[in-house]
């Protein structure tokens, strides 16, 4: 029983990091409708930023996490200018491809700047584990869960309770009409890419302590983010979090009882089942259009 509980907690800790990854992805989906397939590589970029800053100053990551967010915000705006705005009137699949290409450019930039080998970033506060009875949790995992919880709650409140959040949603639903009620849609979209990328960067900085960063490390993360959002319900924040948790539970808990390969296979079988049984995802998309 203790083993099972320990596994579940490890799964939740990894899930919290995946949730942060999915959160930035869903942020951009919610505000622009664009699927950003450079997202996993941006997570890696955040990890590399943490590695770089950590090697310059030997301090815990919590002190330079805001700086990582700022750097990544700028990178996100650059991504919007390069891969989104020029294609804004094209079909969504075009943006899918252009962000995929930006991701590949990032992967190669990582090789040039940091080499092909793996790096680790400093921990958020300190390394080591905390004990709760017979269960132990790494301090980094606790920190990741706390940061994830704060950012998930903030994003939820931003989208539902603030004027800027409502305007972001309006812009995502009908950009032209948003402008026609006075909303500066292009500025909001650029800011959205910045914020979504900052979230990706924070996720990367947190993951880069336990799980290393390497040039192609972002590819599975893009896929996980996409899967989490599909499982949970397109555009749903709660859905993305649940989706991320499901992925990590398969990778940590299920893989402890069968093999990792079998667990991964089962995850994709589950995904297919969700596609068939509940194509709108667990939390469904609540918007329909009237004919």
């Amino acid at each position: 029983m203790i083993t099972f509980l320990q596994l579940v907690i490890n799964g939740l800790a990894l899930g919290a990091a995946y949730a942060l990854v999915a959160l930035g992805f869903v942020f951009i989906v919610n505000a622009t409708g664009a699927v950003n397939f450079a997202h996993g590589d941006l997570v890696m970029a955040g990890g590399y930023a943490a590695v770089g800053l950590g090697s310059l100053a030997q301090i815990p990551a919590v002190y330079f996490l805001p700086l990582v967010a700022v750097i990544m915000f700028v990178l996100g705006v650059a991504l919007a200018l390069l891969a989104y705005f020029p294609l804004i009137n094209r079909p969504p699949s075009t943006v899918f491809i252009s962000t995929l290409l930006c991701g590949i450019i990032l992967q190669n930039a990582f090789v040039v700047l940091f080499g092909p080998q793996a790096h680790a970033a400093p921990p958020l506060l300190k390394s080591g584990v905390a004990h709760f009875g017979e269960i132990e949790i790494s301090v980094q995992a606790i920190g990741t869960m706390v940061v994830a919880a704060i950012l998930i709650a903030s994003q939820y409140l931003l989208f539902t309770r603030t004027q800027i959040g409502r305007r972001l949603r309006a812009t995502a639903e009908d950009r032209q009409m948003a402008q026609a009620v006075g909303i500066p849609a292009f500025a909001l979209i650029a800011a959205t890419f910045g914020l979504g990328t900052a979230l990706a960067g924070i996720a990367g900085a947190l993951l880069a302590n336990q799980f290393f960063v390497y040039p192609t490390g972002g590819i599975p993360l893009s896929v996980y983010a996409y899967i989490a959002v599909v499982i949970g319900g397109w555009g749903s924040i709660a859905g993305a979090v649940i989706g991320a948790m499901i992925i990590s539970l398969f990778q940590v808990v299920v893989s402890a009882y069968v093999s990792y390969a079998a667990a991964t296979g089962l995850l994709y079988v589950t995904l297919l089942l969700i596609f068939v049984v509940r194509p709108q995802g667990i939390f469904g998309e609540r918007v329909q259009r009237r004919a």
Partner: protein
Amino acid sequence: MSGLLEIDKLCVWYGPVFALKDATLSVGSGEAVALIGANGAGKSTLFKSIVGFLRPKSGALRFLDRDVTGLRTEQRIRLGVGYSPEGRRVFPGLTVRENLEVAVFAGKAERARRVDRAFSLFPQLATRQEALGWQLSGGQQQMLAIGRALMGQPRLLLLDEPSLGLSPKLADEVLAGIRGIVKDGTSVLLAEQNVGKALACCDRAYVLEVGKIVLAGTAAALRDTEEVKRAFLGG
């Protein structure tokens, strides 16, 4: 006349086909002006050019004595234009209240005040505040689109076919609201296929036919014009 909106020789092309040719019209302060014409005559094209969805090939577009052709859509709106588009285009995933709130650029108290005023103008919306845009009936969506267009307290309200898809009774209710809007200080430019109803609630009118303005005058004069009677009123 103090011209709020002055359009001079506006030409709009869709590729090789013109949608508007040398359209010249004006709307003054305190006026309700109708734009009448059949489907495809260019009414929506004119509105889309005014708000900046479409880029005219030539001609002048002045609002409040200012050339607005170089301004982005949101800048034109913030100058004092309200736009209720054809097909309503309410934000489907936002609640009724949120649909109104996003269009207010003022502090929180003022936002609440304006939303309340929209609810008093359209009491039907007040009972459905938390419903999502897509869940409303067509008539309610139309009221929401008009209410949303009024949120910025515009000097000019553009109403594109507000009666489309509504029952005759509901259409009458919506059109009857126009006089009240004008009285509150907002000029109205109304595109409408139902000519009788449009002339009944507006001061002046322009008649569009295949992209050209073919007739203009006061509503009373146009009602008695043979061409209008023959073409639109079935007389």
